[in-house]
């Protein structure tokens, strides 16, 4: 069977482009290596053992990747090592350790387990090369993207403050912001004491009933999957609408293994492994690759042939380069007062004061701070007992009872700048169950990254102190661990084929019917913004420029 559009990857970019194409009447096949999740069945937040479960990853083709050797750690930077009160340092090696790349395979992709953040990119972060001499500029302005941000926010049901002081916008948010949690108000008060701003986070989580979905009931467990569908993951928003057009077919647990190119710089078909392991292929007129900044270059590099001996779209050797990762810091305090901090949306409040690329003295690239008690997985007694309440015996049990609900965590995510030592390539030895070589992650933090991280750590500690949570019980960051959820840059977009993989509409410079619609096209990461809303806006914009069938 042939389709107008074949989309590989059903996350933020794949799902939103599936909707955008379907509503125009294109016959769309949306394919993902992972399963379709049933919120009421798969997300076990109603069970007594809920805390033991993380997001229920499953499926015929589980993802895997490898790491090259990571960098040595500087003994002078002990204050940036990860630790908790029970275990001490989380590792004692002299080398950065690979913790993981948090990537969900499934219809909805990583939005299935995200905390619902729906951030627009800071316009200042789109001019990193021309303003700061680092990285690359985006090949269009924020103003060109703004209408598509509005559309994506409307489809998701984004809740945010009106007016929003952090970003220029031409219309209000569709839904009012979620009020801050009781615990989140402590962080707000702390920021105010320091002269810092703190505002409700902009979230793809419903504050009212909307689009046939109920409002959030503030359980805090977005990362474990939302059984109520109030969280705007791509499956219950864009994909649901795509299916409703009647023009979209979804294929799950089918892993793409190779893209086959033909003459005339056109892609012919995608080969994949079906659920039963059989090898199949499907052809289309247009191909959208939306597997994320690790898996997209993997698929392209694996698809080498006589047309592209070094991998598809890789004529200039840029596929996999400019890899940007998540620069992260979290400090957890124990507040003297009961907070009930397990209640509320996962990340209700945020400080954007240092988000501009020149906001941190001596450092290029900004960051943001947000309430992360839920993201730190301190929502139930198991994690209190294991991580932040030391000891054992009856005294320990009394301590856990006294501590529960008093954890208060502040997190920071910062800009990641590209450097030549951070890239994705194919592992020369390891393959997955289909025989595809694994993506291999090469990561190196630069001195500027580390100084940005130091700022994030010190400011997080100040905010906790000012919030009354002076006793810090756990800290972790990406100085001594590689731990990424947001990844970018490996198929950069730009004006010229000499320094970019795709053009400003995310179409391959060479392959006329191939687009890449995920964060691998980002020329910059931003100062910690969550990328899913930008990915969705980019996809809507790209499809808007494609003629109807």
């Amino acid at each position, binding site marked *: 069977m042939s389709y107008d559009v074949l989309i590989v990857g059903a996350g933020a970019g794949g799902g939103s482009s599936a909707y955008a194409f379907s509503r125009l009447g294109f016959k769309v096949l949306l394919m993902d290596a992972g399963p379709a999740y049933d919120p009421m069945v798969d997300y076990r*937040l109603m069970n007594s053992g809920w*805390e033991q479960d993380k997001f229920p990853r499953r499926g015929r083709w589980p993802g895997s990747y490898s790491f090259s050797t990571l960098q040595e750690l500087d003994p002078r930077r002990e204050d940036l090592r990860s630790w908790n009160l029970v275990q001490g340092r*989380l590792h004692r090696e002299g080398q950065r350790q*690979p913790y993981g790349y948090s990537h969900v395979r499934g219809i909805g992709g990583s939005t299935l387990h995200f905390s619902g953040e729906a951030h627009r990119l800071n316009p200042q972060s789109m001019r990193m090369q021309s303003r700061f001499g680092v990285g690359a500029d985006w090949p269009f302005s924020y103003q060109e993207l703004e209408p598509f941000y509005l559309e994506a926010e409307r489809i998701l049901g984004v809740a945010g403050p009106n007016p929003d002081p952090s970003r220029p916008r031409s219309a209000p948010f569709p839904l009012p912001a979620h009020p801050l949690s009781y615990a989140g108000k402590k962080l707000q008060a702390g920021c105010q004491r320091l002269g810092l701003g703190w505002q409700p986070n902009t979230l793809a989580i419903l504050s009212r009933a909307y689009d046939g979905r109920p409002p959030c009931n*503030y359980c805090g467990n977005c990362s474990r999957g939302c059984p109520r569908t109030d969280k705007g993951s791509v499956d219950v928003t864009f994909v649901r609408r795509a299916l409703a057009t009647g023009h979209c077919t979804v294929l799950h647990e089918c892993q793409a293994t190779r893209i086959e190119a033909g003459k005339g710089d056109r892609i012919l078909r995608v080969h994949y492994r079906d659920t039963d392991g059989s090898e199949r292929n499907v052809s289309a007129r247009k191909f959208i690759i939306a597997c994320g900044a690790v898996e997209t270059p993997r698929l392209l590099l694996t698809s080498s042939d006589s047309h592209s001996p070094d991998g598809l779209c890789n004529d200039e050797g840029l596929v996999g380069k400019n890899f940007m990762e998540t620069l992260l810091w979290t400090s957890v305090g124990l507040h003297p007062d009961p907070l*009930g901090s*397990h*209640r509320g949306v996962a990340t209700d409040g945020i400080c954007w004061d240092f988000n501009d690329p020149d906001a941190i003295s001596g450092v290029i690239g900004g960051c943001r701070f947000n309430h992360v008690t839920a993201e730190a997985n301190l929502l139930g*007694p198991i994690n209190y*007992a294991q991580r932040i309440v030391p000891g054992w015996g009856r005294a320990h049990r009394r301590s856990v009872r006294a501590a529960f609900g008093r954890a208060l965590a502040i997190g920071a995510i910062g800009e990641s700048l590209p450097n030549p030592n951070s890239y994705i390539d194919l592992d020369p030895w390891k393959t997955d169950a289909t025989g595809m070589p694994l993506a291999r992650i090469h990561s190196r933090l630069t001195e500027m990254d580390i100084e940005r991280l130091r700022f994030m750590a010190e400011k997080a500690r100040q905010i906790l102190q000012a919030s009354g949570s002076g006793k810090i019980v756990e800290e972790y960051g990406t100085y001594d661990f590689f731990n990424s959820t947001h990844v970018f840059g490996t198929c950069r977009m730009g004006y010229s084929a000499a320094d970019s993989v795709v053009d400003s509409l995310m179409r391959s410079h060479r392959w006329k019917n191939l687009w890449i619609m995920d964060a691998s096209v980002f020329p910059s990461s931003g100062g910690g913004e969550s990328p899913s809303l930008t990915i969705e806006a980019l996809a809507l914009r790209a499809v808007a420029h494609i003629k109807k069938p």
Partner: protein
Amino acid sequence: MKFDRRRVLRLFTGAALFASSAAILKSVFLPATLSSGERAILKAYLDTLIPDDDSPGAIALGIPEKMAAAAEKDRDYLRLLHIGCSWLDATSGSNGFVSSVEAVREELLDQLEHSEIPSEEWVFYQRTRRDAFQHYYADPRTIAALDYPGPPQPVGFPDYGAPPGEDGNT
């Protein structure tokens, strides 16, 4: 004896950072299960780690049996329990750990908690402590003692903006 770095990371993160392989395991014969003596030591150890009080402890909740069963599926974990039980028994004196009085058992747990990092004893303590608390606080009988209304769904926490305890919301 220091514990192998790969084993430490694997046993701690809960995820198989490194796949089990013959290269990691020592070529030492291990029985497929804990012996009856080791099971008794594990039971006594967990009874000290999580004793009864106004709520059931580890023994009442069947935690020793759960952990022994998990060890039968994980060779590294089995070896760790074997090491830990041997240490407890050897260090408790002529009576052995099971027959030791509460004060002696508590002293040994204190030693484990403060043992050299990353000695085998330290890894044993950290891993078994982590697993025991996972089983313990996943049991609904312990949640009740916390005055926590969980699980999080289907009710959620609609009064999340108020101080805990107001309007019956914890």
